[in-house]
């Protein structure tokens, strides 16, 4: 393949088109008179070009007006002489527009200008309006320029600076998309009837279970016991069923019992269900719920569906779904829930994870949630493209980026969070990211709503935001072990700027200030508005209940040394008769707990145990007045080395160290190794209420040592009845929210000094106990917000964002920044401190924008088209310019490919405002590929209607079409040189041959779209 240089045809084509009479308007291009070769200056090469043109027939003169140096209406030797005289002999300057400035020919003559690097003759007012929208917004919509010209720039800016709050009125395009990509959780008081991770009996569907398997009276004693959820392969399973992947297993059956008071007086009851793929649920033998596909079609058929039926359609378990169940299906006392779950064919993953809850709904508006990071990442596009509050939206993204956090880090933390009983509260990534995306959304929403408010509010809300507390590790910042990560970044990145007025000592002191700032989950009733949740913070963890001991440590237990089976069967093997309520333990020894030896935690010391017996048995009766009460029953047990526990004759739990022992374990069984270290395991006894009876119940345990020669053993059991306080929220509860927690016990109460020896020195006294410790942070945040270095750093970033990249902390400190930017900075700093409370961003921006006089660097045309668009600016301005639809989730991927991953940036510094950081081969490639794809309408996701710009029946030719889109995209500012290349592109076919645009051909629209893609690939479109 050879290099395809400029053919004679290329140039000819362009000149030919421009010379035809119908397009004389295009020959009125601005030019510099005398700059004949259009190299932005008049020198000896220009008269030479004239002479070349006259005598050698060179076609290199693209702008005849420029060569008509004396403006005589023709090009002749006099023009060359005029130029030579001007250059060498101090002759007069060529007439208007002269050799330096671009302008139109004031004389009506027979020649024109076809090719020039001067900006086109776009109306300066329209160009200015386009510039304005590119800076305070994401570029103009097709009718924005007209609107601005109609209402005036001052009025436009006044409304942009005072955007109002809440839902945007009369903007259905925006509100429909916002509603579509968020969901709502109704506010309710949610309580469990069947708690998470309950034990079920289960049966794998390799054959049909007995016909009465779902009935209350069915004997499921030969089914296996396992804890919910059941399944395989998506990391949300407590009881794993590998047969779903390794065999053609289609179904499994689970059943358990639970106890109710009077169902008729309960709030509405729901089956809260995670399922993958299909299920049918039965209460007391009657079907109460059955899954369907999202479109309503049946996943399962038959009553009941047979064991070997696969689900018709897949369903992923992610966020629990709520199936209402009328209370009439329930009865007071013991009820049976039975569920058959079915897998889709050839589908390895399976989940069946049911709970039962009641929900008492509130009339409060529901909480808006964002279901996924994908939906979260749409918002800068949805709002960027459709919001009329453009300045507020741009600033919202600016602050989000300034206080950047990473949704993925938050998601990981939430995904791995475990409840009190050691089970993960959210099985899956899907469920976790609902929380992380929602929290990020709320943070971003605050930044946007307060974008024009006080910087101090933004700083404080960031300091106390859950995403930030997690992102910069402040949740790991303890008095005993400070973590400096957040301390460093709040100084370096959020307030003062790097190395701007702080020391390493300040970082260490600031880390101490923020010790104890962490996160918790709070119930709905405790949710407060900003700033109350910071100034009046929650100070306790989510677990909070009042406890009554039913069985205390130190109470007497009956016990039996394991020198033999306590209740052997006929061949001497173990039975559980000794665990029964009616068993006569009067012959057993009596002693207080702990029972054991060798490690100092025993009230009853088994001095003869080592080398004599490996196990012992213990029993304790206790009283339950009514098994159906709503208090929370819990068993705590610390042990060494293994234990198996029974309630009224039924095994309810065993330590992991006994997992390999038979059921029941013989008296000789050895345990795995485990030390009692004061961290007892907790067992949710509410699961076992159906085993309880009103009156006396018995708890029994067999305790095993790791070897007969082991020198220590422990048994420390405790049973409690608990009533949650109003602070308490179960982590499995869908209600409530993650929130800032100031935890005094982790706060360093010593004295602290920050910015020592400066006018901004902050002395924090020692001894601020309890909630008062939060004042350290609040005072520091106030100090930072009022610090002149903060004002300087933030104002510099605002100038970078809105005016020019030619300013930085360094160029301000060494004085090398342009003087007009230094002056602007000084004005903005004055504005920053002009309000009673410093740092009102709206006031500072009003100074920058100067809506009344429209003077200053923002309005300096030298700063127009001087900034490279960031990826989000590029995408938004592209879609806005064509009024393309913006609902695609692909936009976030494009943005990522261009180098910007909003809400998920790893580094804490946010994305750069500086153009050089956005110039690179890959980001340019992705921008071009994106633009051409949008222009061509090949994606359903961002369609635009060419009819908004061109009436296909008008039969516009190439030049008119270029003019139309020159106006749409650039407010008519394209140079003739650019237009010429565009027309050449439009009118050249794949073989490089001329290809006139035919308005009647059916490729007319396709070719125009291709041309628009090319126009969006121009260097000019990279700038704002």
């Amino acid at each position, binding site marked *: 393949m050879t290099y*395809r240089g*400029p053919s004679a045809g290329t140039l000819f084509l362009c000149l030919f088109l421009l010379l035809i009479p119908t397009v004389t308007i295009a020959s009125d291009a601005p030019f510099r008179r005398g700059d004949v070769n259009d190299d932005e200056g008049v020198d000896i090469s220009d008269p030479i070009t004239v002479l070349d043109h006259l005598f050698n027939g060179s076609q290199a003169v693209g702008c005849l007006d420029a060569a008509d140096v004396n403006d005589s209406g023709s090009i002749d030797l006099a023009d060359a002489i005029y130029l030579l005289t001007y250059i060498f002999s101090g002759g007069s300057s060529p007439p208007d527009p002269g050799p330096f400035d671009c302008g139109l020919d004031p004389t009506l003559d027979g020649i024109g200008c076809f090719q020039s690097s001067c900006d086109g003759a776009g109306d300066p007012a329209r160009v200015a309006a386009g510039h304005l929208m590119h800076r305070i917004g994401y570029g103009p919509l097709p009718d924005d320029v007209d609107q601005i010209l109609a209402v005036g720039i001052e009025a436009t800016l006044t409304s942009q600076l005072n955007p109002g709050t809440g839902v945007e009125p009369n903007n259905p395009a925006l509100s429909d998309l916002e509603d579509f990509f968020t969901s709502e959780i109704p506010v309710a008081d949610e309580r469990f009837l069947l708690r998470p991770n309950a034990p079920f009996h289960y049966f794998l569907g390799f054959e049909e279970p007995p016909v009465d398997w779902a009935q209350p009276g069915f004997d499921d004693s030969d089914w296996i016991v396992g804890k919910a959820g059941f399944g395989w392969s998506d990391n949300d399973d407590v009881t794993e069923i590998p047969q779903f992947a390794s065999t053609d297993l289609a179904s499994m059956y689970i059943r358990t019992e639970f106890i109710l008071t009077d169902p008729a007086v309960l709030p509405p009851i729901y089956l809260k269900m995670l399922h993958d793929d299909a299920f049918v649920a039965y209460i007391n033998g009657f079907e109460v719920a059955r899954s369907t596909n999202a479109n309503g079609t049946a996943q399962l058929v038959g009553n009941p569906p047979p064991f070997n039926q696969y689900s018709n359609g897949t369903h992923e378990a992610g966020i629990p779904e709520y199936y209402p169940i009328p209370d009439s299906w329930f009865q007071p006392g013991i009820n049976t829930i039975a569920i058959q779950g079915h897998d889709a064919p050839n589908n390895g993953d399976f989940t069946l994870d049911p709970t039962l809850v009641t929900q008492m709904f509130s009339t409060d508006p529901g909480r808006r949630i964002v279901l996924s990071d994908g939906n979260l990442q749409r918002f800068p596009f949805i709002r960027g493209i459709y919001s009329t509050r453009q300045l507020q939206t741009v600033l919202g993204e600016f602050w989000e980026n300034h206080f950047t956090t990473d949704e993925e880090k938050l998601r990981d933390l939430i995904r791995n969070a475990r409840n009190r009983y050691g089970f993960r509260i959210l099985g899956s990534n899907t469920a976790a990211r609902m929380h992380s995306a929602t929290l990020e959304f709320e943070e971003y929403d605050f930044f946007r709503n307060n974008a024009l408010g006080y910087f101090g509010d933004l700083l404080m809300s960031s300091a106390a935001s859950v995403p930030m507390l997690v992102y910069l590790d402040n949740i790991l910042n303890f008095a005993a072990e400070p973590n400096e990560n957040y301390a460093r970044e709040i100084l370096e990145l959020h307030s003062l700027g790097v190395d701007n007025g702080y020391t390493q000592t300040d970082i260490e002191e600031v880390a101490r200030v923020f010790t104890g700032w962490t996160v918790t989950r709070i119930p709905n009733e405790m949710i407060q508005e900003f700033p109350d949740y910071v100034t009046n913070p929650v100070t306790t963890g989510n677990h909070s209940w009042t406890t009554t001991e039913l069985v205390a440590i130190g109470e007497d237990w009956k016990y039996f040394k394991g020198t033999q089976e306590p209740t052997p069967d006929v061949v001497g093997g173990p039975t559980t008769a000794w665990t029964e309520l009616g068993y006569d333990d009067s012959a057993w020894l009596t002693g207080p707990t702990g029972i054991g030896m060798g490690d100092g935690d025993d009230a009853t010391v088994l001095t003869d145990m080592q080398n004599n017996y490996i196990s012992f048995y213990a029993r304790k009766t206790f009283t339950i007045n009514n098994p159906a009460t709503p208090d929370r029953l819990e068993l705590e047990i610390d042990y060494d080395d293994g234990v198996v526990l029974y309630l009224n004759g039924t095994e309810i739990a065993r330590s992991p160290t006994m997992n390999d022992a038979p059921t029941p374990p013989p008296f000789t069984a050895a345990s795995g190794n485990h030390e009692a270290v004061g961290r007892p395991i907790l067992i949710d006894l509410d699961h076992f209420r159906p085993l309880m009876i009103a009156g006396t119940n018995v708890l029994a345990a067999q305790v095993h040592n790791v070897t007969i020669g082991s020198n220590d053993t422990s048994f420390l059991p405790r049973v409690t009845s608990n009533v949650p306080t109003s602070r308490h929220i179960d982590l499995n509860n869908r209600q409530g929210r993650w929130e800032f927690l100031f935890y005094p016990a982790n706060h360093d109460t010593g004295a602290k000094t920050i910015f020592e020896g400066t006018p901004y020195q902050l002395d924090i006294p020692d001894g601020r106990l309890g909630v008062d410790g939060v004042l350290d942070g609040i005072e520091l945040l106030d100090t930072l917000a009022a610090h002149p270095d903060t004002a300087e750093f933030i104002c510099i970033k605002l100038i970078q964002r809105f005016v020019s990249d030619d300013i930085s902390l360094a160029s301000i400190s060494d004085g090398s920044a342009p003087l007009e930017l230094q002056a602007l900075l000084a004005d903005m700093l004055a504005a920053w401190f002009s309000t009673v409370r410093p740092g009102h961003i709206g006031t500072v921006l009003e100074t920058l924008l100067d809506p009344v006089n429209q003077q200053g660097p923002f309005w300096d045309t030298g700063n127009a088209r001087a900034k490279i668009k960031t990826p989000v600016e590029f995408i938004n301005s592209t879609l806005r310019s064509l009024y393309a639809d913006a609902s695609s989730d692909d936009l976030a991927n494009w943005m990522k490919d261009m180098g910007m991953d909003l809400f998920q940036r790893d580094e804490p510094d946010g994305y750069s405002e500086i153009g050089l950081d956005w110039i690179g081969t*890959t980001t*340019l*490639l992705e921008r071009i590929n994106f633009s051409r794809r949008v222009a061509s309408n090949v994606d359903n996701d961002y369609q635009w209607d060419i009819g908004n710009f061109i009436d296909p029946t008008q039969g516009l030719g190439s030049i008119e079409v270029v003019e139309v889109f020159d106006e749409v995209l650039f407010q008519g500012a394209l140079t003739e*040189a650019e237009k010429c290349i565009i027309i*050449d592109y439009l009118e*050249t076919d794949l073989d490089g041959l001329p290809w006139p645009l035919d308005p009647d051909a059916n490729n007319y629209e396709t070719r125009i779209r291709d041309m628009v893609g090319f126009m969006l690939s121009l*260097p000019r479109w990279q700038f704002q």
Partner: protein
Amino acid sequence: MLNRRDLLRTGGLAALGLIMPPLTGPNFLARKLLAGPIGAGTGAKKMIFIWQRGGNDAVNTVIPSGDVDYSQVIRPSLFISDTEALDLGNGFAQLHPALDPLMEIYNHTSLNGIAGPGNLAVLHRIGYPEQSRSHFSAQQFWENGVPGDETLDEGFIYRRFANVPGFPDDPFPGAFLSDALALSMRGPIPMPAFPATEDYSFSGSLAEVERFLGALPSTPGGTDGSGFYGVYGGKPDMEGGPYRDALMPTGVKLGESVSTVQQALAQGPYVPENGAVYPNNTFGQQLAEIAMLLKRTPASLLGVNIGGWDTHTGQGRITGAHPNILDDLAQGIQALSRDLQDMWEDTIVVTVSEFGRTSIENGSSGTDHGAGTAMFVAGGNVIGGVYNCDPSTWEAGALFSENDRYLAANTDFRVVFAEIFQQHFGDDPATMDQFMPGYDLAAAQYPGLFTQLGFLT
């Protein structure tokens, strides 16, 4: 549903090798063939640099086992005993066990059966005077080569290579394997950067791409070009306007480098040689692409990032986050050394990281920002061994030699690169100050920090 990537890939594949070949392409800016063999201004010498962004914990990378302070006292959860670490034979320094793949290079000059001293240099205590503990500043200094200069946005590696006649104007002088060009390689003349070769293509069929690209103007900045090359190689929309001098040539370089890369890919699937196995992740894929590009294109300078070094929490001792990336790094360098045996004598692989970390473990089983760090240099002419981690260079209390918290530097990173530039590429020592402004002054001021370590023949 076909996603966008697939569509682009289809377009890219269709265009494989058929886009305007840059080697016989435009004579723009009097470049390329006229200047002699492409990318060969310094012979066939090549450099690969690996950027460990985030600040590597040098102390758990190259372990000063001979220092009594390195113990469970300062590192309760991160301490690695001398029986667990890999011995480097100098009776003092050891490597983290996850770096085991590096031992193959450390112990053997090459894989072709010739035994000899290894060609992996392990450099400890590298830094510069008055180190910054900000990621952003420290990376800036390590890349612009002028510690203390927060504003210079031009890389010292760029400056060194730009000095080679013909190099920067070469259609494909090298690349950085990331979506953005590292500052080290930034300069007035753009260098290509892309995360993956496969996606580095314009959408459309061959003919469509060719029509889109068009042709450069007959003279730089002229108006007689066409298509994409015509606008990016032609007159800027605003003469002398901001960033035009960066953006316009970036466009031209984009067209040219895409063409080169797609031609390289068109030669067929890349199969690493000599049993090289790259890590099975993005970093490993990027290293494999680097090897492919070194073999199939004229590129002589390639760089890549590996992240995850900012181990404030849960760093991991023998297993975990830090060991995992150490393993990736070591596997990657080992794979390069195997794969590039045919050009190993001409190749130098160098790792950099902006700082080391605190000698004392923090409360979150991690480490915080520190000072002196460690580098690895591998290549056929490297004199294997441990530098700056032996009883003669490691004084008592060295772990607290800066701010009582971190390891102070013994050697300036600029002299490490000066040695590479002079010994590997044959640069004149007098040019160091040109590549790294302030070099001569700093060298005079800190003679100890600026003594060459002698790891190259």
